[in-house]
């Protein structure tokens, strides 16, 4: 469905040298599957999602959607072909409200469905639909609204960039449940979740570990999860029983 072929993105460093922040990445995303992309901070996860969305242009390599090379298409054109991306840090808009944005995400959505989508992400529609997307919303609220937009878009490729970041634990479970329910085994769509979450990674179909712009590991979750589990879960958890502890 979505095929990345030898993608490279090179940037100029401050000191004038050049560096690949994505280096020779090839991935074949299949329909009906839920993918997790994980890896250390700065590994290139957001960069890869932005290249797929068309926000960044790769230095070399191709992107195919259903056999069509979409490398030269604008963000708008890719969006219209069904690629959707929930930003890691959603921008704020003074003067636009929550319902304006959801209506842009899905033109013609009816009031009932709009309210349902809000409830899905744990926001009471009566309290939030008219709220301004300016500085008055909390980070977690912005994040949920961002996820609601992508869920309503019904894209063929839906990418969520750290949906759990800044969202309380209770809601995270619910959100992840929703994404899994909506995309897993849906033959017409593919979902990609960029995440570090120990509850999300094992339930995805495939895990891709991106480190320094290179795919370090890739495969079915049951194979990959045991290999990375120890790096992600707190090693001291058993000892301190989840109390905060600092290693000196």
């Amino acid at each position: 469905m979505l095929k990345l072929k030898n993608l490279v993105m090179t940037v100029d460093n401050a000191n004038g040298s050049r560096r690949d922040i994505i280096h020779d990445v090839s991935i074949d995303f299949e329909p009906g599957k839920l993918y997790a992309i994980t890896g250390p901070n700065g590994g290139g996860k957001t960069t890869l999602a932005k290249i797929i969305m068309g926000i960044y242009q790769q230095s070399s390599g191709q992107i195919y959607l259903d056999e069509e090379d979409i490398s030269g298409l604008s963000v708008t054109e890719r969006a219209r072909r069904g690629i959707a991306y929930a930003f890691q840090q959603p921008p704020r808009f003074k003067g636009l409200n929550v319902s304006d944005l959801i209506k842009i995400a899905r033109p013609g959505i009816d009031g009932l469905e709009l309210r349902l989508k809000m409830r899905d992400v744990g926001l009471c529609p009566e309290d939030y639909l008219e709220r301004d997307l300016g500085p008055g919303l909390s980070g977690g609220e912005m994040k949920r609204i961002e996820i609601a937009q992508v869920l309503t878009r019904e894209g063929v490729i839906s990418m969520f960039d750290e949906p759990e970041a800044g969202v309380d634990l209770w809601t995270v479970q619910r959100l992840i449940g929703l994404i899994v329910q909506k995309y897993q085994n849906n033959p017409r769509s593919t979902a990609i979740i960029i995440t570090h979450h120990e509850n999300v990674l094992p339930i995805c179909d495939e895990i891709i570990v991106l480190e320094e712009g290179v795919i370090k590991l890739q495969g079915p979750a049951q194979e990959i999860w045991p290999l990375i589990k120890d790096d992600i879960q707190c090693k001291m958890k058993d000892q301190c029983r989840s109390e905060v502890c600092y290693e000196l």
Partner: protein
Amino acid sequence: MNFKAIDMQLLNTISDIKAIPSGAINIRKDGKPVVRQSSANIFVGPNSANNGLLVEIKPGTRNETVHVPVIVTQAGFHDKVYNTFIVGEGADITIIAGCGIHNDSHNDSSHDGIHEIIVKKGARLKYVEKHYGEGSGGGKRILNPTTNVILETGAMAEMEMVQIKGVDDTIRTTIAHIGDKANLKIIERLMTHGIQKAESDIRLNIEGRGASGQVISRSVGRDDSSQIFKAAMAGRNECVGHVECDAIIMDRAKIQSIPELIAEDADAVLTHEAAIGKIAGEQLIKLMSLGLTEKEAIDTILEGFLR
């Protein structure tokens, strides 16, 4: 009075009326009143100097709206008018003013409206003024409104002043005196295109104990237009005042924002925030990732910002 289509369109744009409303109204066209009507509680008539309008709202009048739109359609016409509005004690009403100019000629057309608004003890006023210009031809459409507002004890006013488009030159002066426990909120929204020039000069004198004043300005400067925004706020008692001006700058526009705070009492709390910047790239990208074109994204952002 029979209005032409052009007149009705102008009226609709500046005051949202599709037909002549019942109730208190004065429509001024090319310097002459063409519709004038009082209601049981609102007197609409000439002022004593006979150079404008007197609108007097009886104390306690509630939920009524007065329409006082002005249109200028005669090319090269220069209109000047002095209007006085007195909102009686305890009243709660809306005034819809506004001016639309249609000018297809090569001569300038202008309207200078000098308004005096007195909001008596405990009264509440919502005042809406929209400015709009249209027409082909090189003649300018010029609007220079001056508004003096006096808020007596416990009065409240919200004034929304909007310049929609097509006004080539404008100097807007607003001076307010706010009394004890009175509260004034001024909302200004402005968009300039082409080589338009707009200047707004707001002076709030917060004089009463426990009074408050607020100025919120949102503006967009496009093409080669220029804007100057001055807001001077003086606190002369135990009071609260806040000025907020936010501008989006595009193309080759120039925007100058000059907030000024003057405290003359140790219990005056005055604050201001001013920001000028272009549309954030992230905002455009976000909307484009939802399927809008770049132009649609810009329009959506500007429309929201000025709403």
